[in-house]
């Protein structure tokens, strides 16, 4: 009896502890989630509209955010120099748009051309960062600005005058310099997204069926094992069943609306929303690429080189003493990050469809980093889950803040400024917190 009471009390404490931990360790994420909820409410958007937007934005952006993870593992902090990767991607897109190759073949060619460029940029970045150990982030930030100058020099002055290129659609009327905005409609736009699309409920159905099969399979294989984590798989199983029900209902929402549509106001609203959700499309190929990148990140952390990243990240000195070539490992980490960023930018621009030649890459690094940090990552630790969660939250704020600003203050511009403040503020805050923690640790060591 007493044991039982103690147990429940323990559980209560445990629960409290958990909540406390959640709040202290994930304060940025929690605050963000709350902000997003308030913003969503204030914007007055419908859920189906939001869903459509957020799916587009995740498929557009997740790749770039995921490109940041490996340098963090290697202890180099957040790689603000993914801007260089984005430039490589854009250079490839300009070339391919010039040659007039369209559709997925064009995208593939872009990826092939961008990769060697990104490898060279990444190598040079890595070399530079090895010369500025301890100041990697500020160096990579400034490097991004510096590269922007070189990029402008190449595409505004050299193209057409030294690099021969004649194309009325791409080059300014003076014959020198690439136009400020390039329209990819009918060329590379949706080259990847349009290969194969599914409606959102169908996507959820397939996804949850796959999940259910996975759970059954796992359960079947591990039934005899004592330490088999039953709870986790039960939770996944229940979730997948719920998702299956949701998708089947929403697929038949039109029929249900005819029979129940008049019964009550709430049912009417929900069913209408579900009908709208049927129109939301998920770009499967892009999604598969993002999944592959996640798997690649998991895979690489289990190989020899992944272990090397981690040891260099934990203590460069010890890693070097134990025979790892730290400098080489760091260069490799940055090269991978830069190449991924180049591909990420290609995915981003094929979805956006128009790109501003001299502006599209400028904020790539900042937005990706803000997204990652909002997901709960820090300068020394970042996971795939954090990257994805952060992308969702950050872009939710993007979708809702102009509308919320207009509804709350009568001015959409205010929402824009608030968003910029949040992006910069989150980065500043996270970097500050990190430095502060380090200072405290250093003091404890003394």
């Amino acid at each position, binding site marked *: 009896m007493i044991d039982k009471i103690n147990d429940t009390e323990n559980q209560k404490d445990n629960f409290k502890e958990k909540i406390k931990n959640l709040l202290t360790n994930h304060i940025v994420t929690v605050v963000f989630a709350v902000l997003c909820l308030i913003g969503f409410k204030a914007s007055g958007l419908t859920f189906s509209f939001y869903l459509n937007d957020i799916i587009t934005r995740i498929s557009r952006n997740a790749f770039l955010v995921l490109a940041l993870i490996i340098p963090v593992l290697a202890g180099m902090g957040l790689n603000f120099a993914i801007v260089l990767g984005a430039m490589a991607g854009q250079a490839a897109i300009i070339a391919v748009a010039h040659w007039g190759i369209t559709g997925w073949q064009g995208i593939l060619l872009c990826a092939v051309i961008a990769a060697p460029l990104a490898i060279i940029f990444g190598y040079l970045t890595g070399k530079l960062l090895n010369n500025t150990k*301890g*100041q990697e982030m*500020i160096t990579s930030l*400034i490097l991004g600005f510096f590269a922007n100058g070189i990029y402008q020099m190449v595409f505004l*002055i050299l193209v057409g005058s030294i690099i021969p290129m004649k194309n009325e659609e791409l080059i300014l009327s003076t014959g*020198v310099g690439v136009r400020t905005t390039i329209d990819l409609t009918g060329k590379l736009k949706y080259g990847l997204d349009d290969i194969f699309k599914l409606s959102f409920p169908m996507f959820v159905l397939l996804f949850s069926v796959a999940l259910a099969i996975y759970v059954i399979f796992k359960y079947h294989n591990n039934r005899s094992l004592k330490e088999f984590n039953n709870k986790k798989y039960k939770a996944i199983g229940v979730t997948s069943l719920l998702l299956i029900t949701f998708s089947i209902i929403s697929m038949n929402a039109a029929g249900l609306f005819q029979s129940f549509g008049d019964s009550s106001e709430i049912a009417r609203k929900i069913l209408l929303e579900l009908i709208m959700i049927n129109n939301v499309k998920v770009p499967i190929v892009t999604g598969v690429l993002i999944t592959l990148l996640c798997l690649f990140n998991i895979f690489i952390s289990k190989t020899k080189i992944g272990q090397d990243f981690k040891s260099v990240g934990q203590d460069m000195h010890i890693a070097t003493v134990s025979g790892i070539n730290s400098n080489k490992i760091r260069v490799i980490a940055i090269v991978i990050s830069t190449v991924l960023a180049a591909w990420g930018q290609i995915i981003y621009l094929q979805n956006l469809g128009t790109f501003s030649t001299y502006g599209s890459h400028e904020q790539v690094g900042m937005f990706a980093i803000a997204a990652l940090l909002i997901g709960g990552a820090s300068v020394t630790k970042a996971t795939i889950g954090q990257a994805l969660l952060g992308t969702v939250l950050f872009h939710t704020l993007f979708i809702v803040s102009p509308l919320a600003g207009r509804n709350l203050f009568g001015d959409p511009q205010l929402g824009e400024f608030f968003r910029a403040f949040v992006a910069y503020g989150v980065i500043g805050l996270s970097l*500050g917190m990190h*430095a*502060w923690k380090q200072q405290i640790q250093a003091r404890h060591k003394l």
Partner: protein
Amino acid sequence: MKARVKQFIEKFGLPRIIIVGFLIFLSILAAIVEIPFGELIKDSLVRTGMNGVLVLAMVPGILSGVGLNFGLPLGILCGLLGGLISIELNLSGGIGFFAAVLFSIPFAAIVGFGYGWLLNKVKGSEMMVATYVGFSAVSLMSIGWMILPFKSPEMAWPIGKGVRTTISLAGRFDKILNDFATFNIGSITIPTGLILFTLALCGIVWIFLRSKTGVAMKAAGDNPRFAMAAGINVNKHRIIGTILSTILGAIGIIVYSQSFGFLQLYQAPMFMGFAAVAAILIGGATVKKASISNVLIGTFLFQSLLVVALPVANKIMTLGSLAEITRIIVSNGIILYALTQVRGGE
């Protein structure tokens, strides 16, 4: 001879030699395409004076050990606020200018204190944190410009809320320093007031650095452990350095604006810190050492480069953006070089 050349390069710094070389090259080009030289020298002088105080704001920061002050926009925002208050009170002329300076100083002192406290908490990552503190402050203040209750018709939008993006200083304190006691040498007009004001502030900083507090501050920045052992409160002196830097930033932007003729609000101050950082580095400062001569030489070199590059570029290629591109490459390139010197080869 070879060793001497090598020594000279080492002492003078390779990027500085490149920049001086580039400047000489541009000047020769300017002479060839027949751009009036007097005009160029006049512009260089004006722009040196215009930017000098902003660059000077780097000195206390560097010497007190917080590194390059990428958080300069904080001071700039305080200066802009002071300028707006001066206009709101309907002051003009010299009184308007000095009122703007006076109003901005208390704001800058308070902000600088908080900023210095923050930088003490994040030792080792000051530059990175400062950069983002600057960026976020500019965005936050953009909201501020929209909701602060400024009523003067010169500033407020005729419809809607908030103050204008650029506010003309015509009839207020436009060129009040530039036009003070000007005289001509040949065709060159010397902006006496501007230069005197900048030099006076340089002098004040120079004297401060030789005062007891100044020496203690330099010691705290130079070798914190040694300073601590000598009984100097390192954190306190870092805060003093930051406050001074922020105040100079505030005065700097007012000097800049009166010469430019406009107050630029909203996103404009975002990257002003970078230009100032680049200028002092071109003048020969490092992340740990800076002097008044670095400020003057650096500002003059950097601004002359931009002044000469623009007309030359226009004459040769009709591409106005070349000067802007030069600015981006030179300023960020020099910052990168300085960063590699911090702990290079470790």
